[in-house]
Structures are given as C-alpha cells and as structure tokens.
C-alpha cells in the first residue's frame, strides 16, 4: 500500500487535506477566522511543506488588537502541534493572513 501512495502524490495530498480538516474540526476555528486555505509546496531546502492560511479581517494598519493576535497565534501553534503529533508527512506552516 505504501508503494502505491509513493506514486500518487495527489492521493497523499487528498489524505492530508482530510487529516487537516479533522484537526480543524477537533480544534474549531476561532470566530475571527473567516476561512482557511491549504496548499502543498516545498520549502527552500526542497522538503515537503503544507501551508495552512487562516484568513482573518484586519484593521487599517493590517493588524489585530494585541489580545486577538495572541489568541489566534496560540491557536495556529496548537494546530501545527496537533498535526505533528499525528505525523503529517508535510511540515505544517500555519499562518495568519488578511482576508484581502
């Protein structure tokens, strides 16, 4: 079975999307997060990486009140930690991004 997966990156990505969806279901998105986006890339060293963008509305300065920022940053860290605990084969980069 593993050999089959090795030659089917699209299938692996689909499985990882499901894994991410599951983690985000167990750790419900904070109300400030409007949606999330997932993309698979390589990092600078060529290692597999999954970017999970948490889209939030920001103020005119492109920022958030400190308290909200800390809350969302902690949430992003928790999601990344959970994905690593579940041995996701891509390094998870969970980040906050503005909706526009």
């Amino acid at each position: 079975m593993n050999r089959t997966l090795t030659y089917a990156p699209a299938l692996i990505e689909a499985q990882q999307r499901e894994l991410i969806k599951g983690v985000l279901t167990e750790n419900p998105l904070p109300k400030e997060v409007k949606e999330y986006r997932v993309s698979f890339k390589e990092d600078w060293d060529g290692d597999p990486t999954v970017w999970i963008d948490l889209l939030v509305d920001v103020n005119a300065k492109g920022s958030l009140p400190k308290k909200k920022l800390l809350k969302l940053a902690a949430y992003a860290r928790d999601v990344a930690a959970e994905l690593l605990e579940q041995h996701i084969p891509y390094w998870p980069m969970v980040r906050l991004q503005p909706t526009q």
Partner: protein
Amino acid sequence: MALSHDLLEQAHYLVELHSKEPKQAHLRRAVSAAYYALFHLLIDEALRVMTPASPPQLAEVMRRAFNHADMKNACQGFSSGNPQKEIKKVLSGYKGDDLPLSLSADLKLVARTFVNMQRKRHLADYDNLVTFTKIEVEELLDDTLSAFAAWEKIKETPDANVFLCSLLLYKQWQRP
C-alpha cells in the same frame, strides 16, 4: 543584553516602523532578525552546557561549528517527538519510556518554532515573489517570544541538554 535578545527587540522595532504601511524590507528584516534571535539563543545555550569556561576562545570557535541545516533537522525530530535513533537511546536511557517519547510541550514548541522561523527566514531573505503581511510577521514574533519563554522553563532539564547537543551533533549521530 545578549545578542539574541537584542535581535528580538530589533525585530519588534522594524515591524512598527511605518506601522500604517510597513515596508516589505522592514518586515523581511524583522523575520530574519527574529530567526537569528532564536538561532543565537540556542547556540549560546548549547555552548553553556558543552564548553568549559576556560579558555573562553574555545566557545567562540565552537560557535562556528553549528550549521543551520543540522539544527533544523535535529529540531524536526524533537518537534514531532520522534528524534533520531542515537537521541532516542539517550532519552530512553534515563526516561525509561517506550516510544513515542514523552517530550515536554515546551521543548517541542522551541524545536518547532526554530524550524518554522528558519523556513520563513529563507523566504524573507531570498524569495521576492513572497509578500509578507504585517499580521503574519506579528504572529511570527509572538511565536518567537513564546519559544524564548518556553526555553526559560525547560533549559535546565536533561531533555534540554540532549536537545542542545543534538543541534551540533545531528550529522555525526546519523552515522549507522
């Protein structure tokens, strides 16, 4: 103040420059400074546990033996609670754990933040196609601060000592 703390302070300063319309150059330098803050913190700590006080030049020569790739690889193993074989041997030797090893959440956070920040630093310094947003950089600085705080809590533990040695010896410990 240590270089690591100065760099973290510099990163915060850069993010707030032109805070209404932050320049990409400032945001990128902030990411880079935050990464190097953590890089130097961990090397300082590794030298603290690995080198004698005398002669003082020894620590400075050893500082140059650390490299980014090995540090990243070592950190990736600790982040997922699955470090390389030699490290598992050492850890299980005194913890008596079956796999998976029970590493502290704080140690995993430090290791994970290092890997994340190194990846972001590469983008910040080399990839002009990427645009950094202010909120993303503020989040990264908060992550780095959290890693500094987490390190304070665990730095005297045996696990931390093993972790620090692995930052330097990762490649050597990969030998079969």
